[in-house]
């Protein structure tokens, strides 16, 4: 190979520094300008006052904090935690056996079963949620079925149940996939050994399978919890403005009430809760 012009014997250290700069700088500058600076702005907004028409008036205030700890708004944060936890738990209860059985399937069926889990994910997110309005509304399919069977129609839409259903539907695949990856990695000989040593299937599951798949459980739960906790589209569409989460409040403050500082305070609270949970999880993982 013919040595190129850029191969002149420059000092290797200088060249290295240049290399690092060429590779790292463009992406990092982009992320700083369009992610870190915006986040810093959101954080700093918390200390300022609202402009009447949105925007910020740069006069210091602590009002946004005092408003944030009002039980009215803390209650919504608590409700969101409840809804996100419930969704994650149900996803785990459904996802674990599903992933477990997929892993036992012969390889051809396994691929099909996995693709079938991801496939609904490939349609438009909004339309997936919309499908539940058709199923659950007062004149919808479920209620028509109930009526035909002689039962009274149920209020299925515009409540917490509808919101949890929609969230579960949207994020269940994100639980199944990491669980499958974790279960699939298990060495079947471990379970055989446990059985040979006289352990019941349940004991084997509790003492061997479950502990070894905890990382999968953690990842899956995280994948479901994070987008669920910060969601506003699903509670808006299926909650009818009555069953709401932090995300709806943030959206309301930004696009309706035009109170950006308070919306920023709510967003900061949302991130703070997530960071706390992540730290707690990392701490638990290190102790385990």
């Amino acid at each position, binding site marked *: 190979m013919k040595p190129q012009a850029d191969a002149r014997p420059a000092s290797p250290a200088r060249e290295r520094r240049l290399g690092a700069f060429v590779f790292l700088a463009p992406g990092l500058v982009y992320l700083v300008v369009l992610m870190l*600076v915006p986040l810093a702005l959101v954080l700093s907004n918390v200390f300022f006052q609202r402009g009447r028409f949105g925007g*910020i008036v740069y006069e210091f205030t602590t009002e946004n904090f005092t408003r944030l700890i009002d039980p009215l708004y803390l209650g919504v944060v608590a409700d969101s935690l409840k809804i996100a936890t419930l969704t994650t738990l149900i996803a785990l209860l459904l996802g674990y056996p599903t992933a477990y059985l997929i892993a036992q399937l012969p390889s051809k069926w396994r691929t099909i079963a996995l693709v079938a889990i991801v496939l609904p994910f490939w349609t438009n997110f909004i339309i997936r949620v919309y499908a539940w309005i058709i199923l659950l509304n007062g004149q919808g399919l479920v209620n028509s079925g109930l009526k035909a069977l002689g039962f009274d129609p149920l209020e299925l839409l515009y409540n917490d149940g509808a919101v949890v259903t929609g969230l579960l539907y949207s994020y269940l695949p994100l639980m199944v996939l990491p669980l499958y990856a974790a279960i699939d990695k298990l060495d079947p000989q471990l379970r055989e050994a446990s059985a040979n040593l006289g352990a019941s299937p349940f004991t084997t599951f509790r003492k061997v399978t479950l502990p070894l798949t905890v990382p999968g459980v953690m990842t899956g739960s995280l994948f479901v919890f994070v987008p669920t906790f910060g969601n506003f589209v699903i509670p808006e569409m299926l909650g009818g403005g009555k069953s709401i989460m932090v995300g709806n409040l943030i959206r309301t403050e930004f696009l*309706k009430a035009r109170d950006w500082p308070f919306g920023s305070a709510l967003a900061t609270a949302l991130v703070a809760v997530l960071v706390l949970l992540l730290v707690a999880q990392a701490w638990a993982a290190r102790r385990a």
Partner: protein
Amino acid sequence: MFRTRFTRRLPAAVAVAGLALAVAACGGESTDSAETAPQATAAQLNPNADLSKQSLNVTVWDGYTPKELTERFKEKFKVSDMKIALHATNEEAMTKLTATGDSGIDVAFVSGQYAQALNEQGLLEPIHPELIPNLSNLYPEATQLSYDKGNKISVPYTWGTTGICYRSDLVKTPPTSWNDLLKPPAWADKKVTLMTTERWLALPALKSLGYSVNTDKDEEIAKAKQLLLDAKPHLLKFDDTTFGDLLVSGEAVMVEAWDGWCPTTDEKQNIKFTVPKEGSDLWVDTMVIMKSSKNKEAAHAFINYILDPEVHRWAAENINYKVPNKAAMDKVKVAPGSLLGIKPAELLDGESIIDLGQASTKFARLSSEITAD
């Protein structure tokens, strides 16, 4: 060795640059927003401007103007391009028009109190009446509306009132009071809706308590809030856009509605509209021209075109909204069940919603507190 030194310095350098940028940007913004309501100053407009060098962007509620409007206007005035953007609510339009420096919008359709608010922020171009000869088609009443007397910054497009729209075949007794919505009887439990846009969300409660829709008294707003919070568990949902559909499908039996969006002309003729005995509002949806518009002559030509009786009557005939255009209303055939027969004088019984300046944020806050509870 260089590797470690370099990477240790990089984040710090980047952070400093970012902060500098943020601070510089903040500095620029604060001077802008601290100023309040600069008086609108009129631009010099040329009545003979070559419109083919101008384009036009309009934001309007979905379904509020004819589908063919763009083509027809383009053909008639030869503007280089025209786009129609849609907003679902006034609040959404306000965010669009105020969030960034240049919204790209030339003409916006917003309700009267929001036109007034946009003007206070110095965002509107005064209306140049000499460029809109069709202003003479308006009812005299429509030039003396309290949010903008003399149509200095806005031109009315439709007007009407807010009331209860209901299924006459599904209610046991026809509603007569706002309390029928706020404290629905058992047969209507979870089958009623209220609106989401702040001032209309508050309206039923304020009127039922006998207060003005333009109150800025904290204790009155607090009482209204309590009434709305008590009503919330009995609602189907909060809705500004599909209440008509909810009535047609039977999911709801009574809804808070603007007269035009109450589907009284539906083929089954089982939907009725009533103004509760406690009274209601007079709302006006208006057209305004943005100060940032670079196509102000085309914008005026557009508003003049809308006020043409042949164009303006479309709204009355197709979306059942009364238009404040006498020449257009004289040509409209009133369909069975239609509410178009209400005369301007009767409309003026309603209390006109006006912008409350800084006190308007109390209603924004009321709306978030109702949402949060």
